[in-house]
């Protein structure tokens, strides 16, 4: 079978799957699966026979994890979803991150309230990872507007990076046994201490295999005008680390805003990174004119990519997991909006087309070539 480009689109009313051939001229849409139920995380697991996963945040009957083994033509519940031990006292509120682990069947899952789970059987059974879930800091983390969520899981051999809102960045050097807060240079505009040990509102992180030690972070920026305790904190929203996340520095200079949610790295160039700057008050693009911004030198400078996007009066938000990039030779970017639009940025974001303009509000967009 020829390569197919598969998109999973997690929305307020279920998960959709879109499929196209390599030219990506048009996408066939399927779904919704898990209809009517919000989906905040999806995963296209390309290890072996492709499997698609979607969380299903059922407000009535609790969290489910859906799995498809037929490329998104049907989904079934896994045998169980992550759950806290009965005597823990916490109850699962949402599933925010699904990432493949080692081998063909290991999965990692970040949840709300911020905790980490691991499955060794493709999602049928789950074990809580105590090193972070019961970390000394865990009961001190505070929820942000989106809830106290563990939204980013990045594997780098035995190293494991986690992004928590509002907990900050944590790293394990021993495969997930123990974790340390690692936030030097990661600012927080909402605490009297502008650079606390932990408690930052990390929005998303990304890395590339070709740049060992480098990480990019979209943090909760938008504090340049702040006049309260600690004074203004310009540029704390978009950050880079070159030492495996031990220290971070701003790369926000040149962006119209350092506030935003997603951050995505080019699949073939570790120096090319994409963000979508948002006005911190409205969570929409500055001037109501949407644009993705691209750096091709690791954040030293930025350029605006907006050809084909609306030029005015667009007030959508693109959430933390609603932007992704495919791995074809000339990759395309994709983002979904809170107003239900799904966009493709052809030629690495040079030309934007709306693939669908009437989906439910979009939380999550993932892409894979299978």
């Amino acid at each position, binding site marked *: 079978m020829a390569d197919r480009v598969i998109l999973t689109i997690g929305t307020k009313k279920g998960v959709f799957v879109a499929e196209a051939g390599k030219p990506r001229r048009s996408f066939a849409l399927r779904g919704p699966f898990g209809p009517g139920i919000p989906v905040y995380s999806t995963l296209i697991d390309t290890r072996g026979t492709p499997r698609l996963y979607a969380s299903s945040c059922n*407000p009535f*009957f*609790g969290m489910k994890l859906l799995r498809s083994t037929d490329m998104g033509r049907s989904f079934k519940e896994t045998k169980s979803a992550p759950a806290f031990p009965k005597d823990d006292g916490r109850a699962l509120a949402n599933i925010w991150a699904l990432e493949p682990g080692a081998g063909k069947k290991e999965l990692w899952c970040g949840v709300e309230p911020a905790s980490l789970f691991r499955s060794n059987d493709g999602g049928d059974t789950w074990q809580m990872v105590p090193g972070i879930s019961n970390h000394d800091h865990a009961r001190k983390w505070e929820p942000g507007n989106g809830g106290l969520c563990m939204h980013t899981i990045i594997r780098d051999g035995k190293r494991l990076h986690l992004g928590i809102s509002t907990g900050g960045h944590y790293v394990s050097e021993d495969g997930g046994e123990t974790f340390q807060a690692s936030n030097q240079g990661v600012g927080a505009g909402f605490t009297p201490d502008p650079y606390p040990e932990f408690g930052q509102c990390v929005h998303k992180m990304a890395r590339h295999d070709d740049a060992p030690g480098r990480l990019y972070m979209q943090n909760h920026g938008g504090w340049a005008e702040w006049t309260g305790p600690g004074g203004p904190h310009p540029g704390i929203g978009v950050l880079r680390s070159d030492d495996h996340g031990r220290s971070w520095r701003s790369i926000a200079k040149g962006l119209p805003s350092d506030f935003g949610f997603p951050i995505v790295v080019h699949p073939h160039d570790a120096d090319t990174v994409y963000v979508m700057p948002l006005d911190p008050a409205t969570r929409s693009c500055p001037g109501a004119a949407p644009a993705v911004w691209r750096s091709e030198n690791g954040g030293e400078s930025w350029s605006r990519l907006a050809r084909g996007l609306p030029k005015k009066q667009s007030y959508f938000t693109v959430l933390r997991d609603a932007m992704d990039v495919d791995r074809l030779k000339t990759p395309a970017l994709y983002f979904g909006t809170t107003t239900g639009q799904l966009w493709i940025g052809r030629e690495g974001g040079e030309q934007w087309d709306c693939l669908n303009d009437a989906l439910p509000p979009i939380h999550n967009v993932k892409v894979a070539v299978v």
Partner: protein
Amino acid sequence: MAPTPTIRLHVPGPLRDYCGGAAQLSIQAPTVRTLLEELERSQSGLYGNLCDETGRLRRHLNLFVNSDNMRDLEGVDTKLAPGDEVILLPAVSGG
């Protein structure tokens, strides 16, 4: 000692797959609490949809004993009598 009352539990449509397709279950339980405990023991898949990990009835799910919401009675300590109908209904929502 009075015999343990048998009540009839009405299962909402979306949850019937978790109990073999049954629309109703006959269960012996003197209180709502013991009813839920019995479900945890004998219908664990169904129970997981009704209660979270802490054992609390899920927030947007209502449990009625006959026509009264258990929250207006004595919560999970509400006593059950032979022939009582226990009805589970998702809360109204929209948007």
